């Protein structure tokens, strides 16, 4: 229905407002690119709050005894930090932001399959996050169960569990609808000639992730509903006093929450698989292996939930099975690492900002993955369970993995999204400071864990003091690097120089359209006739 005024230069999606003004051109638009940015801004806002809470915890732990907060405040702080970071930041993170923005473009489509549903998902996300935050301010005080809501404490505690649990339930809906949208989009809207085996790796990762979102989230949904039933109707599902089994709650919770880790890491791997070939100027090594390992991780990752419960009193048969499956799921992850390294081998590498993030991702992911095997082995797990070692491992995978890939993807696609280029030397400075601070923050946790320091306490014995100081100072350094990065990107949006269509020399479809893209991405739906990642 366009009036077709001047067909010389179609407007970019940022200028095309659909006649809406101010904030409405954002919150009423069903354009997948604008929705992706809506998620980016809301997720970044939550990330700031989550980081602040994390820094507060590290300040509390800078010295033994009470430093800035007592036990109850500390319990609330790590609970809210966990709930915000998991449910509001990392789970929607890469799929909702870059999946929304890039999936349709990379498969050669004008939008997702259900654009209105896409916008609705964002509204549901906002509704869920408001519910979660309301738990901080309403009556009984902020929740103090940890983000895992373990029964029976989660329905015995007097704190505001209802809004927090209900919020997590609502956020699950948003995640499910996003996943549903992406699966249908990938099945139905691929450009002519874009067969499954020509699909770039990032859409593949988003597709695999979407299936996990779709199939795992309902289980936590029903589990949270059952917890609500416990709190409101006193049913007794997980109450040992009524015959219920709290360990069943752990099963149900981790049936979702372990695959949720793959919701976080699969798209991260996908983004890294985009960045590395572009900056090595070389076809990705073993495309089929990467694709099949993505699907294998999504599939096997569904059956390893029990490794979170090795000390809960499960049967020996279950312990054994879960431990073996955990080792099996490490294989496809390792395949990916080999593929990335092999892609770089004899490539023409340019160490630009996105590549630095990607390379450091491989390093932190390796550390996170190998410490994961230490935890996946039954004997060592008993020693390390619920110690700072787990916290270190977890942050190496989830923050190191997802976070580094997110920032890498942000720097990689930034010129495409905004049509502006950031200051690369400042971006490198920010990355370097962030990386050093990150290592200083989380590395000591492994030593503390092996020494026996338990997690989730506001206090510790004096012999743990040394590593804790390093960790707390590392947190401050890391935040400095993060602030530099964010300011640099903000300045680029405002005053950055204009970015060319293909600043990095990438080969996929997103680099063949204008920066920023037009409302419909493509003037004409392209026909794909060659394999992906071909460098001549």
């Amino acid at each position, binding site marked *: *229905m*366009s009036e077709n005024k001047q067909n010389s230069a179609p407007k970019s999606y940022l200028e095309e407002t659909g006649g809406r003004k101010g904030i409405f051109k954002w919150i009423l638009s069903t354009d997948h690119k604008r929705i992706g940015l809506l998620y980016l801004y809301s997720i970044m806002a939550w990330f700031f709050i989550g980081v602040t809470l994390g820094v507060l915890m590290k300040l509390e732990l800078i010295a033994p005894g009470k430093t800035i907060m007592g036990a109850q405040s500390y319990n609330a702080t790590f609970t809210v930090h966990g709930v915000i970071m998991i449910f509001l930041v990392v789970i929607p993170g890469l799929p909702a932001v870059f999946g929304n923005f890039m999936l349709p473009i990379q498969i050669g489509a004008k939008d997702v*399959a*259900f654009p209105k549903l896409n916008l609705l998902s964002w509204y549901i996300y906002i509704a869920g996050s408001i519910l979660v935050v309301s738990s901080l301010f309403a009556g009984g005080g902020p929740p103090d169960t940890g983000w895992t809501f373990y029964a029976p404490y989660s329905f015995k505690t007097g704190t505001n569990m209802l809004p927090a649990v209900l919020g997590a339930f609502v956020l699950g809906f948003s995640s*499910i609808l996003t*996943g*549903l*949208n992406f*699966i*249908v989009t990938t*099945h*139905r*809207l691929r450009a002519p000639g874009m067969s499954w085996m020509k699909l770039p790796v990032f859409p593949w990762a988003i597709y695999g992730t979407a299936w996990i979102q*779709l*199939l*795992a*989230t*309902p*289980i936590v*949904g*029903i*589990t949270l*509903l*059952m917890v609500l*039933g416990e709190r409101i*109707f*006193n*049913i*007794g*599902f997980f109450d040992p006093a*009524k*015959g*219920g*089994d709290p360990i*069943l709650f752990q*099963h*149900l919770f981790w*049936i979702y929450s372990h695959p949720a880790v793959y919701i976080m890491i699969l798209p991260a791997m996908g983004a890294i698989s985009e960045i590395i070939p572009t900056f090595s100027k070389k076809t990705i090594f073993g495309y089929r292996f990467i694709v099949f390992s993505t699907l294998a991780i999504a599939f096997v990752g569904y059956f390893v939930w029990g490794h979170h419960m090795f000390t809960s009193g499960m049967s020996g048969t279950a312990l054994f099975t879960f431990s073996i499956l955990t080792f099996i799921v490490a294989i496809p992850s390792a395949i990916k690492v080999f593929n990335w390294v092999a892609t770089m081998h004899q490539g023409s590498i340019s160490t630009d900002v996105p590549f630095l993030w990607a390379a450091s991702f491989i390093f932190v992911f390796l550390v996170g993955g190998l410490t994961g095997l230490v935890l996946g082995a039954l004997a060592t797990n008993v020693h390390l369970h619920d110690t700072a070692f787990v916290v270190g491992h977890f942050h190496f995978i989830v923050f190191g993995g997802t976070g580094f890939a997110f920032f890498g993807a942000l720097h990689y696609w930034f010129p495409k999204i905004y049509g502006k280029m950031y200051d690369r030397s400042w971006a490198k400075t920010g990355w370097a400071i962030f990386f050093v601070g990150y290592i200083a923050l989380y590395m000591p946790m492994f030593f503390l864990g092996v020494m026996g320091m338990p997690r989730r306490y506001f206090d510790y014995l004096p012999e743990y003091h040394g590593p804790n100081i390093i960790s707390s100072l590392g947190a401050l350094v890391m935040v400095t690097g993060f602030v530099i990065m964010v300011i640099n990107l903000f300045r680029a949006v405002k005053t950055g120089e204009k970015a060319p269509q293909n600043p990095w020399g990438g080969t996929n479809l997103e680099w063949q359209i204008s920066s920023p893209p037009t409302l*419909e991405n493509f003037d004409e739906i392209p026909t794909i006739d060659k394999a992906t990642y071909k460098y001549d």
Partner: protein
Amino acid sequence: MSVVHRDDIGSKLGMWLFIFTEILLFGGLFITYVVYRYLHQEAFHLASQELDVAIGTINTIILLISSATIAMSITAIQQKKKKLTLALIATTILLAIVFLVNKYFEWGAKFEHGIFPGSEYLDQLGFGDVLFFGLYFFMTGLHAFHIIIGIAVLGFMYYYVKTDRLTHDNFQLLENGGLYWHLVDLIWIFLFPLFYLIA
């Protein structure tokens, strides 16, 4: 911009994916059921005798018939028989309401006997009974909630057919509504033996 592209298969795929999430949602409850039935076999066996097999059977047949009528409405709309389509959708809604009325009396009778979640009487009966009836009320309650949603969905379908927004060459929405209704039927097909027939 051309006319909005219509993709019936995409729409159907979306509906099926939604159905999968529903299956997994109830799947979580079926896991709970299997575990507790294994741990409390004898008590589940006895508690199940409290349920009225006759009402359960009647409700099962009602849902099966309603499932058939909504399926037939899709044949009717394809044959351009608008009146028959409307009549079949209306019958489905009516049967759904009858199902809920039966459920209301069934639950009401249990409540009168002091059997409801958290009741003192139930707590005295023992762990197995608490869990059996906890699951019974939770699962059939969630199922009844889906029936209520289904009635609303079918109500919209009736309105759309009546106002010719759905016609013989554009009826994917009705088919999706039908799929949802069959899902409600499918879940009941399993709930019925698990709660009523294990006595």
